[in-house]
């Protein structure tokens, strides 16, 4: 059951390099705000995917789940995306003085922002981001590296260590997701507050990680790897995706409804922008692809474990999360939705790069945590 060597994929490399050239061109040619908005979008997307995958792993250790032992190696491998997220995040700090009103020089003359200068200003903003990235690496070191080492050592002590660390990681995860949401997305409009916004991003993050995990599991199964992973395991993944589309809709609507009811100018403007012109179309589309369509795709019992259907739902969810990030970041640039060669280049570069990284990581360790004493129980899982 040893992991196979990944074959080189010239198409992906080509897309990555072409995208990279486009990103460099965009840096030279398009307005800085637009360049950095793209960068922030992809940074948040990759970070949510990495942290969300680590959340799946930590969740298993936290609640002593057995079924997911059989598929745990996949989110573990995807979570290694937190390594390339570090340089992406550090470069993204360049966006802070450009995009974030709280860190711009005008903030000194703004009564509210001046009072929060310490929190919103570049130094502490950067420090928080560095801490968040470091906490991601710490989680990776304790949960993923230990699990990979267990493949050889077969030492069950890892399970005990992971179980002890998992609760702490949950607190870390909550903190990091909230920081990501508040700093990197809410921070674009610092006069707009939503307490629930961290939870909103968590829902998207978990969904994104589940979808990408499902897609890799289906892909590896297509290659004949992951023997023993059955419809029952897929059913659980589909069930989670199903449940969290509803959760996402619940949180998203709760946030919207409170602001709609209160109708306070500084709050409601955030939605007003997103409910005008072409953005309105995207808002309706987001509700459809993030909630309504996946809900009905996955509502029946058979649909959740059926590979073709699960693949369809997972691809849709991934696209929905991408649209969600775009919908959160880009309206703040003002004007109509922007989509042209810079956005495409970023998608090719960062999307292609992430795929390359994940492809390479699929040969890390065994395909299943063979050293985990609970693997057999996980494989025998039946609904």
């Amino acid at each position, binding site marked *: 059951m040893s992991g196979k060597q990944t074959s080189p994929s010239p198409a992906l490399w080509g897309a990555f390099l072409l995208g990279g050239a486009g990103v460099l061109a965009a840096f030279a040619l398009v307005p800085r705000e637009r360049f950095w908005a793209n960068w922030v979008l992809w940074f948040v997307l990759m970070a949510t995917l990495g942290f969300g995958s680590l959340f799946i792993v930590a969740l298993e250790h936290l609640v002593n789940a057995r079924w997911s032992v059989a598929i745990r190696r996949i989110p573990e491998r995807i979570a290694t995306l937190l390594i390339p997220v570090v340089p992406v995040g550090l470069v993204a700090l360049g966006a802070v003085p450009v995009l974030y009103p709280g860190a711009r020089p005008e903030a000194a003359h703004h009564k509210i922002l001046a009072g929060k200068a310490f929190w919103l200003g570049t130094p502490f903003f950067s420090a928080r981001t560095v801490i968040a990235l470091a906490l991601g690496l710490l989680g990776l070191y304790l949960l993923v590296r230990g699990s990979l080492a267990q493949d050889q050592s077969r030492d069950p002590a890892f399970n005990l260590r992971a179980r002890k660390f998992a609760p702490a990681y949950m607190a870390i995860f909550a903190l990091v997701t909230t920081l990501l949401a508040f700093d990197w997305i809410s921070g674009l409009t610092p006069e707009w507050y939503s307490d629930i916004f961290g939870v909103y991003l968590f829902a998207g993050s978990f969904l994104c990680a589940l979808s990408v995990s499902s897609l890799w599991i289906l892909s590896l199964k297509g290659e004949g790897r992951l023997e023993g992973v059955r419809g029952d395991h897929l059913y659980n993944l589909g069930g989670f995706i199903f449940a969290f589309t509803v959760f996402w809709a619940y949180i998203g*609507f709760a946030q*919207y*409804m409170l602001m*709609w*009811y209160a*109708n306070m100018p500084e709050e409601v403007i955030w939605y007003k922008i997103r409910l005008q012109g072409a953005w309105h179309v995207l808002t309706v589309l987001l509700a459809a692809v993030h909630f309504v369509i996946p809900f009905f795709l996955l*509502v*029946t*019992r058979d649909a959740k474990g059926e590979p073709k259907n699960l693949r369809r739902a997972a691809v849709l969810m991934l696209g929905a999360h991408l649209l969600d990030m775009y919908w959160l970041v880009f309206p703040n640039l003002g004007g109509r939705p922007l989509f042209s060669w810079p956005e495409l280049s970023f998608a090719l570069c960062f999307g292609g790069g992430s795929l390359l990284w994940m492809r390479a990581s699929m040969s890390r360790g065994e395909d299943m945590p063979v050293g985990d004493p609970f693997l057999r129980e996980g494989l025998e899982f*039946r609904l």
Partner: protein
Amino acid sequence: MAETFAVLGLFDSADALAKAIPGVRDRKLGRLEAYTPYPIHGIDEALGLRRSPLGGMVLVMGILGALTAFGFQYWISAVDYPIVTGGKAPWSWEAFIPIMFEVTVLFATFTAGLGMLFLLNKLPFFGHPVLQSKAISAITRDRFALALEAEGATLDPAACEAALRAAGAREIEVVPAPERAPFVTSDFVLRSLGGIFLACAGAGVLMYWAVKLFPVLPPMSYMQNQPRLNAFKPSAFFKDGFGMRAPAPGTVARGHLPLGAATQEEAAGLANPLPRTREVFEMGKAAYHNRCEVCHGALGKGQGSLTAAYGAKPANLQAQQFRDYPDGKIYWAVTKGKNQMPAHDADLSETQRWAVVHYVRALQRAQNATDADLQQAVRR
């Protein structure tokens, strides 16, 4: 002999049971069912059990719940009684969503719970016939039973027994169909009515407590006992000991500009600002009817219905003295009152008072009409 409900074949292990299923299933002697001490993975598929219809029922009822809540709220807020609340249009779908969500959940959970209990598990029928079998104590311990159950048509016990034996059953038991008592007995009806009566009585007592007593019990009564200023009640809060405050000197209420004239003679020069239109006369008539008529009478002759009770002598507005009054003096009397007549500046607005003056003039002219007036009226 009673009809057969099922023929049970007992096996020693789950494996033996699983192995026996395909052979027995192919014979199609009756509905196949298994009774085991613990759940066995994959046995549903082996038995070829139909997927429970509950999921579909829940989905349909859930959607129905959402539509019900939507339609109900739409009808209430946008059609039957459209009202602007909190600055939102009557037709605001956002406000409907939480209730749609709750009603969806309500319909879905009730369908799941009650559908399972009553439709699928057939409550109020409690005793499953297999529970009456001799083998049941073994089945709940360490035996595994495969049952061929009667499905509409009667079962052929001999053929079933042969099939189960052939499949390797150690023991065979024939379970007779239970004699079902009729569902609605007089006892059942009496108990139901008694239960409903008790529930209503309990709900009544609870409701009485909730409405009458609970609001005045300590934690709730704090609200009434909080320190506050009561109108017309003394209060230690202000130095003068009054709860109510007098308006600041010189305060003028909207629509109540003070009358410039200090005496009725001074008011003689005021001119009626209102035109003599039908609307003004209607307004004056309504105000006169409400405020003046009880004393001055419908025709202004000073013989209203209240005069006898008070022994007062209201002015006869038809008297020559008042017919000669300028408008301003009548207006002054309405505003400030005169002799026993109260002031009406608090009850009637300035416009209403001037309208009353017009109306009084109309009464006077009607009671003292000349031939010229008649001709003028005829000409119109």
